[in-house]
């Protein structure tokens, strides 16, 4: 694979704690764009932004429609919309129907970024209670990207990482505490 240009992370149930562990452990020197899709019932990601800002060495912002994807910045998908990335590296939003009962859907994000960054992408699936993200992770691998999945036995909700392993497989399947060090190693190598 090429040097990664971006990391896309998906999770649902138990995702806030898992994101704290992963994003809190990322190196401040990372120059990758980081895109996060968390299933949430909330109407805003303001609270989540605040929480993650406190523990992350990298800036945390909500992804804004039509704005450029920024390197070294963590972008959160806004609630109620699917998040996509255009080939000119700008964000796009959609209110197309839910996918796997979710909007934002991890599959929609992963399909889109897989085609933009191809082998310069790392896809990460963390804890979650449904199979969203599995097909998207398979697409990431098909196009040469790297797949990282949290060990199901280690996840608060096992369905999502389990489905990802079954549908996509993984280049790395590791416990939560190992994910940030792994990403740092892959990105700073």
């Amino acid at each position, binding site marked *: 694979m090429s040097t990664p240009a971006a990391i896309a992370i998906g999770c649902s149930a138990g995702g806030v704690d898992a994101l704290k562990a992963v994003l809190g452990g990322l190196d401040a020197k990372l120059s990758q764009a980081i895109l996060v899709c968390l299933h949430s019932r909330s109407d805003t990601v303001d609270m989540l932004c605040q929480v993650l800002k406190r523990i992350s060495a990298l800036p945390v912002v909500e992804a*804004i*429609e*039509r*704005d450029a994807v920024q390197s070294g910045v963590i972008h959160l998908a*806004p609630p*109620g*919309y699917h998040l*996509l*990335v*255009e*080939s000119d590296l700008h964000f*796009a*939003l*959609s*209110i*197309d*129907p839910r996918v796997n009962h979710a909007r934002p859907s991890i599959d*929609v994000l992963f*399909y*889109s970024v897989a*085609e933009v960054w*191809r082998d310069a992408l790392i896809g990460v699936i963390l804890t979650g209670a449904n199979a969203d993200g599995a097909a998207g992770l398979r697409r990431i691998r*098909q*196009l040469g990207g790297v797949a990282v999945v949290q060990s199901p036995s280690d996840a608060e909700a096992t369905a999502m990482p389990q489905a990802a392993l079954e549908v996509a497989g993984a280049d790395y399947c590791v416990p939560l505490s190992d994910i940030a060090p792994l990403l740092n190693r892959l990105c700073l190598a």
Partner: protein
Amino acid sequence: MNDIKVDAPELDSIELDLFVQALQKRHGYDFSEYAPASLKRRLRLLADQLHCKTITGLTERVLHEPQLLPNVLEGLTVPTSEMFRDPAVFRTLREKVFPLLASYPLINIWQAGCAHGQEVYSLAILLEEAGLYDRSQIFATDLSDRALQRASEGIYSVKDAQQWSRNYQAAGGTHSLADYCSAGYKLIKLNQRLRRHVTFALHNLAIDGVFCEAHLILCRNVLIYFSDPLQDRALALFRDSLVRGGFLCLGLRENLNPSHAAQDFSPFIESARIYRLPTQAEGAHA
């Protein structure tokens, strides 16, 4: 032949371009200024539904089976909405915008991209409860015939009604949503009296011109599917359709790229994405 990559990155955009050209040349619908990421996704879903292996397969059917056009248009514009989606926005319209609209003897409202009409009925209910409906006219437009047909029927799944009812209450509704519809086993039908001041009409923001003189335009989550130049075109159309001091309401996460037309609008209630043209007095020096 082995050196030809099945998944070459440019293959997708070639197929997408060819489809868009075919649709335009064969049927006159121009999607060339739609933002590619969502368009490509919708085309793939549509290709799947119509049992085409590739987007090129879909292109062939669009060229040779004109009867598919309504399906294709519906698939490319995927109408999804709910009644009183983002209740705070409807509450803001009721509390902050309607009192200003009330000064006009006749109130024209343009709902651009009305899809299946959920917001048209939401708006009609809101106007009814504000005592303004009998001097209002709602122009509800869409580029899809089939969407307009569905919108004018006002029939929706009963599954959605519970959420819509909660939305209605949160929007400050003064009755009960059930008062405005009849419910069957699986479907609800909106009271057709709500349609008495609604005109449904075909209009395509990508090619058509000014539609009416409006005091308020609602166009929520439509422009998110447009490229920057097409967003600019639509905003210019809205500007030219609105009276001085007229209002524009966009979707909650929409971002006005600092285009020419966007600069003519000032935020009125930014949190609800409601914008306004300058009033007569403010505009005098311009």
